[in-house]
């Protein structure tokens, strides 16, 4: 880690020596978010599709979906440094970009609040912003501490949560274990009632026969008011309102992105989860 940081620092000083601020392309929402938080916005010449949702990046050219990047498209924006998240690809495309003499830095993935520091430090080292990086790391760590303190007084009675993601066509998908949503449910002191399957599965009546949720967490972008949403859920129907089932809406880019905004977004959701 330290060695790669040194290499990156040397690389960066080479860029500085050329008397330019490096032109950046970022792909992966956490990576773009970190770069923007480090004040690199003006140097970013293109972002991937997920990056367009981040404040200040709306007008940047779009290099497409992070898993379906094109080498020539990226090189056409004339970048000095390409920062991508771990899922970026296809891998041969990243190799082609490197072969053309443009540095590609892969920021490690990880669905854990503990990985955010490493992501920030990687981006900061690659862009020569280590000072700003440490400030951001300190803020993120403070937020994580606040979250842990707020969720520490559970006494084992964690509210049952189901997290629903809206896929195209309006189908709701429930988040099982091995998902970003599962990690966040745990982090805010909830219990994922869908933990017995991995990945995202279409919402079905079966899910609620095994366990009943106390709280439903959905993306802000899901249409309809809470009552409509609950009524549309198979196996829950009218009974939901009687049991006092609550709906919490989250900004999923912030809540599930495992970027610098995630801990503070989680603090808000954790507080909502604990409301009587």
């Amino acid at each position: 880690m330290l060695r790669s940081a040194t290499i990156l620092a040397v690389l960066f000083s080479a860029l500085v020596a050329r008397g330019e601020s490096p032109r950046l392309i970022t792909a992966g929402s956490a990576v773009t978010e970190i770069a923007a938080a480090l004040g690199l916005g003006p140097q970013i010449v293109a972002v991937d599709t997920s990056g367009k949702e981040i404040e200040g990046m709306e007008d940047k050219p779009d290099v497409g979906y992070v898993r379906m990047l094109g080498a020539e498209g990226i090189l056409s924006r004339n970048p000095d440094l390409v920062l991508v998240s771990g899922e970026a690809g296809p891998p041969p495309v990243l190799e082609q970009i490197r072969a053309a003499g443009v540095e590609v830095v892969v920021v490690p993935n990880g669905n854990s609040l503990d990985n955010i520091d490493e992501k920030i430090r990687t981006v900061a080292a690659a862009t020569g912003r280590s000072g700003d990086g440490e400030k951001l790391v300190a803020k993120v760590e403070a937020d994580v501490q606040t979250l842990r303190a707020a969720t520490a007084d559970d006494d084992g009675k964690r509210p049952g949560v189901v997290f629903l993601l809206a896929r195209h066509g309006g189908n709701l998908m429930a988040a099982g274990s091995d998902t970003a949503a599962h990690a966040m449910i745990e982090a805010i002191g909830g219990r994922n009632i869908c933990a017995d399957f991995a990945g995202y599965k279409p919402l079905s009546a079966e899910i609620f026969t095994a366990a009943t949720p106390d709280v439903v967490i959905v993306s802000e972008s899901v249409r309809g008011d809470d009552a409509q949403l609950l009524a549309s859920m198979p196996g829950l129907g009218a009974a939901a309102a009687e049991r006092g089932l609550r709906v919490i809406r989250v900004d999923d880019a912030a809540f599930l992105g495992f970027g610098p905004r995630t801990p503070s977004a989680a603090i808000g959701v954790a507080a909502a989860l604990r409301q009587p």
Partner: protein
Amino acid sequence: MNAAHEDDARRRGRVRRRLWLLAALFPFVLVAASALGAVTIGPADLWRLLTGSGETSEVVRAVFWDIRIPRVLLAALVGASLALAGAGVQGLFRNPLADPALIGVSAGAALGAVICFFFGWQGLFGGWLLPIAAFIGGWGAVIVLGLFNTGFAAGGTAKLILAGVALNAMIGSVLGFFLFSASDDALRSMTFWTLGSCASAQWPQVAVLFVFLAVGVALLWRNARSLDALQLGEEQAAHLGVSVSRVRFETIITAALLVGAATAFAGTIGFIGLVAPHMARLLLGGLHRAVLPGALLLGGMLLVLADLGARTLAAPAELAVGILTAAIGGPFFLWLLRRPSAWSA
């Protein structure tokens, strides 16, 4: 009698002219596609790159020689392979709706690739495990089909087609199992693989696919007359001295070779294997000595143009090439169909 002979000669002349026209158009399409891309390379730079004279920037050189040219060539080879396999399989089954997918090779290749993604093996052996797994999957499916049809012996074409349908359904259910059990991450990789793309093109792949296509061309060419005879029916072809089992065996093996290799490098790309041979037949008539090279040229050009669209229309982003093969090929095909002389070339 004499008039009929003259008519025949005139028709052959026309077919030959059209074939030469397609052959002349092919390099033109290749050059045009190589000149265009997200990175603008002016005529002066192009000249320098092609002749090796003078200086160009390192990035421009890499974009042209290491990214764009292999990609254009891979698209041409993949399109040509799929179309040639389609022409062979349609001739063999005497069925205009036959598709190389019918013999299970595309589904088998998809299964090989999906298993690779499922276990996260796609990066192993410098990224070569993925195409090798897809190729083995495609071959595995064809071998299973052969075992159930006693090595593709003569007789029972309907049985072969039905066995192909059953095999496709079985592979589909195994595929479904892997898709259902896959992690979110693997699932996305699988989805993009099945959409097809030439974006990962590299020189070694171009070389490998070129060898496969050369072998495929040789195998099908020597069966071209037999495929013509087969159009009269299997029994009649046998009376004319055609070894139907051999034609069938070699055509299916060739299709598996071509589609397996093309799919291994570019993912599943539909439409070309079905429609390019039809285009060739509409333009050149039904004889396989014209249809096979015609399909090869048309399929190659179609995919080069579709891939040109995929890498330039939304630049700097990529589009899925599958969207564009149908968008470019579909209207051209309909235009061919509506010409009054469509079936009398």
